[in-house]
């Protein structure tokens, strides 16, 4: 009995003592920010990804596991622009964790550091699932990643000042590699400029803006509203006089609508990773754009 009590006491004390030596706990709302935090934070951070690339980011629940992780997080790295509005507020309210509350350095919203596109002029829910702050799917343009990286490196240093030099050094090492990669992707993707595409969900304006793709239609009649047979027919007839080269969708989207259009319009359907982990090759941030560009180019051939 006494041994058992001692063992429990020792375990509790060990657990209680652990955080003092542990790395900075980062709660990443989406995998792309988890990957970026890992790039910049190296072994000084421990990253937990709240969601994965196969989950529709608009429909996440405030699961117990997320609450437990939010409780211990030193920092939240999220997209913002109301992408997480259905679940993040619950975590912030119930986690009992002052470090990650809005306005604290430990609360980081990537969307603050890039120029948002598709900011609606009116917000009315009859228009579907629109985000008043602008389209939140910013991670499909690597130049946005660069801007967020700059802000995130500074924020990491603010949250964990003891390792400022470390984060700066990692940022300095990451950026040239990233800029070089962007240059390479842009060169590779040159044939995509001016190419017309159809999207399943309006989740790619930043990608289109980056590579010069032209979105001629969306399979969802309104953002966040499932494609209907009637709307698919409309898109198909639109393509008669406004042809597109391909139809793209995110890894988490149902493949049937875009496969239907692909079959009837005789254009390739392209699944894009959309974020880290969305496809086998999108293992990290570099892989994400490598694969995105390759898949788009592949559809062009």
């Amino acid at each position: 009995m006494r041994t058992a009590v001692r063992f429990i006491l020792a375990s509790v004390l060990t657990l209680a003592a652990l955080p003092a030596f542990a790395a900075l706990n980062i709660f990443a709302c989406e995998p792309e920010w988890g990957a970026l935090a890992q790039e910049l934070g190296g072994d000084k951070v421990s990253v937990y990804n709240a969601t994965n690339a196969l989950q529709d980011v608009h429909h996440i629940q405030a699961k117990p596991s997320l609450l437990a992780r939010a409780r211990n997080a030193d920092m939240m790295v999220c997209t913002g622009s109301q992408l997480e509005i259905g679940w993040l507020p619950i975590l912030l309210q119930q986690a009992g964790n002052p470090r990650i509350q809005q306005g604290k350095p430990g609360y980081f919203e990537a969307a603050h550091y890039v120029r948002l596109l598709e900011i609606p002029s009116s917000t009315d829910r009859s228009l579907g699932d629109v985000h008043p702050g602008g389209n939140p799917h910013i991670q499909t343009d690597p130049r946005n990643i660069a801007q967020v990286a700059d802000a995130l490196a500074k924020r990491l240093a603010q949250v964990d000042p003891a390792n400022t030099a470390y984060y700066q050094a990692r940022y300095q090492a990451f950026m040239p590699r990233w800029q070089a990669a962007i240059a390479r992707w842009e060169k590779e993707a040159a044939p995509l400029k001016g190419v017309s595409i159809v999207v399943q969900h309006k989740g790619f304006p930043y990608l289109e803006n980056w590579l010069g793709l032209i979105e001629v239609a969306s399979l969802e009649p309104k953002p966040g509203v499932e494609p209907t047979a009637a709307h698919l027919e409309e898109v198909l007839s639109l393509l008669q006089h406004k042809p597109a080269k391909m139809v793209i969708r995110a890894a988490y989207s149902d493949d049937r609508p875009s496969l239907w259009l692909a079959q009837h319009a005789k254009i390739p359907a392209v699944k894009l990773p959309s974020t880290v982990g969305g496809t086998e090759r999108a293992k990290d941030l570099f892989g994400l754009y490598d694969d995105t560009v390759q898949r788009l180019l592949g559809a062009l051939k």
Partner: protein
Amino acid sequence: MFRHKLIVSSVLLALGLPSAAEAATNADLQQIHHEIEQLRQNYESRIAALESRLKLAESEARQAGAKADKAAGQAEAASAIASAPPPSHSGGDNISAFNPGVSLILSGLYSNHSQDPAAYQITGFHLPADVLGAARPQRGFSLTESELGIYANIDPLFYGGLNFSIHPDNTVSTEEAFIQTTSLPHGLTVKAGRFYSGIGYLNEQHAHTWDFADAPLAYQAFLGGQFNNDGVQVRWLAPTDTYLEVGAELGRGANYPGTGRDKNGSGASALFAHAGGDIGISNSWRAGLSVLTTSPQDRTWDDVNLANAAVTNRFSGNSKLWIADGVWKWSPNGNTYYTNFKLQGEYLRRTEDGTLVSAATPGSYASTQSGWYLQGIYQFAPYWRAGVRTERLDSGSVDYGINNATLLRPDYAPTRQSVMVDFNASEFSRIRLQLAQDKSRQGASDNQLFLQYQMALGAHGAHQY
């Protein structure tokens, strides 16, 4: 020599020492040489200093230029980006900038019952008249509870909100009105005011998020539908990767199973613990154990005695309700959008002891009763869900003491079976069809049909797990 003198004189003249010209001697000349030398050295050192400063300035300028080039390069890279400067998050100029989130729930119902609801009761379970009245179904068209909720962060330390419920009979009640800390450390949260107790699984959730049109029988029998309390709640979330939460509440306990009271201290206390987590990426779960303790004084209900005469019973004593709850959710890869499944069940067990006055005859009272429900909800396509619920109450043991001689103690187990299908055009609207066979009342099987809408407008509410 003459020429020398002339030159020196000229120099001296030029230096402005004309009077000394003629008195110039060798010594004087040397003195002058010395002075000129000093002047020269002086100027030279100053020129050197100026030169070095110039060089420094030049090199600095070069560095600055290089920096400027680099910065310009970066700026170019950045602006090639699509992107002009980051957004100015404005909109803070007008006075509505700090307005809280307002959300309105609109709900309406058509219901069809094969039995007359006037005689509605849950046989063997004694509800005070007002609680029974609220649980009694209505036939035909009616508004069900429409809710107005106003919530916001108050300041960096507090969150707060209010939820009004507008009832079909044009009365309004305050379902919730509370403040809650957001910035206490170590996983602590304190709530104060009126709020739904953290006991069980369904109790804390607003009725419009429930998966059926009505509360489970066990909730109706033991909590009067849903238990809210005026008081204080403290919750602690453990610093573990597995979700583990414990909470305690102290409150007035004015609502059933408690009664209204006027005394110092608290009339209800609750303790609860929840654990939860994920199993792989497709499964998540939560389980809990709670106990609610109240001390009703003169809880009064109408009954019929063995002689088939109406009597009024009054109970005073202690009431303890235990709840075990569990929920398991599945969706492929954790992507709930296309298909998902939710299995949920709760077991409630209540023990009460104290005194019971039946038609002026005081006696002892002790009872142990229980009930459970189990339900499964399957979303088989985007927008569409179907669900089944089965439930049963056990009237258990009831000991009226001396009043056993006069009061009925029916040996009956109320049951209800429900099925529902609902259509959710978005996360803001729901239309539901529910069919049920309700055997709450002994000897009267009520076949029910509900057609219901529930819509949310205004602020996007985040929902509990």
